[in-house]
């Protein structure tokens, strides 16, 4: 029992570290691949975490990812931080719902990608008092589908190689 608890803790630390590193690499070195759509590499870690460790751990990984990656880039509590937090909060919520509904991993990944974009647009609209920014949503939704499928494929490949540690529901 103690061994399992240690393993969970180590996995949680590793996933958090991976999410932070992927988030920083993506924001600095990769950038948007199409219009404003990013791949969402850190979403792979969120998907893997909820399947392997569980919901609570996924929330911890996502929260730590936003806080530490913006802190390391010197942008904590800036507009970037709140926009990032908005995207992650909504995508985490959707991820939990999809996990409860037993949706396929690929569909969950696409919905997470979509909700991440929607969350960010909502925060930008509130932050800059610009409801017209919603006009960008069709582009983001369209771009999120292939990106979500891509992250879903990678998450699927990871999950076939790691045994889940969470209790079956």
């Amino acid at each position, binding site marked *: 029992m103690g061994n399992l608890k240690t393993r969970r803790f180590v996995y949680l630390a590793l996933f958090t570290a991976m999410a932070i590193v992927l988030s920083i690499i993506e*924001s*600095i070195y990769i*950038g*948007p691949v199409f*219009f*404003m759509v990013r791949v969402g590499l850190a979403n792979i870690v969120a998907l893997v975490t909820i399947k392997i460790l569980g919901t609570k751990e996924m929330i911890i990984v996502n929260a730590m990812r936003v806080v530490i990656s913006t802190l390391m880039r010197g942008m904590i509590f800036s*507009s*970037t931080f709140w*926009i990032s937090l908005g995207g992650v909060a909504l995508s985490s919520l959707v991820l939990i719902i999809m996990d409860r509904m037993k*949706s*396929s991993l*690929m*569909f969950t990944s*696409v919905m997470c990608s*979509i909700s991440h974009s929607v969350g960010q647009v909502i925060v*930008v609209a509130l*932050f*800059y*008092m*610009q409801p*017209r*920014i919603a*006009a*960008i*949503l*069709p*582009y983001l*939704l*369209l771009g999120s*589908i292939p990106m979500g499928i891509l992250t879903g494929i990678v998450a699927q490949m990871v999950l076939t190689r790691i045994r889940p540690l969470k209790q079956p529901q």
Partner: protein
Amino acid sequence: MKKKEWILLAVIAVVSLAAILIMRLPKNTAEGTGTNHQPYVYADDSEDPYASAVLPDWEPEGEWIAVVFRSSRVVLYFDSGVDGEYTVHGNVGHMDIEVKDRKWHVKDVDCYDYTCKNMGWMSADALLPIICLPNDLVIIDAETAQNMTGG
């Protein structure tokens, strides 16, 4: 993926495509009035570093477009109907804006993101403002800018 999941994704894709096509429909633009005034006004920060630019009271050839810094200060108004190039400064560095044929875009920007540069050319009927998050600069129509800055 299950069949209904594919259907739902297809519906999202089709609705998004339809929305994009509707937004890209051409709109008629009003002709300019032909004035000889200066086509731009920068904020005068020689006395007050937080001073906003004053919205010009003459009619523009196109329409007045504002560059807002930190959602609180208009640093530049330019006439979208007169070709020109303008430079403003944000959190990270400079931003060069080019105006041509009643359209404007970010020609060059000093930041790591380049999203504003990649947004391309905007016109009066564009639904989106150009936003540069690292520099905290927004390029938007004058009326919305005044509502945003409270001035």
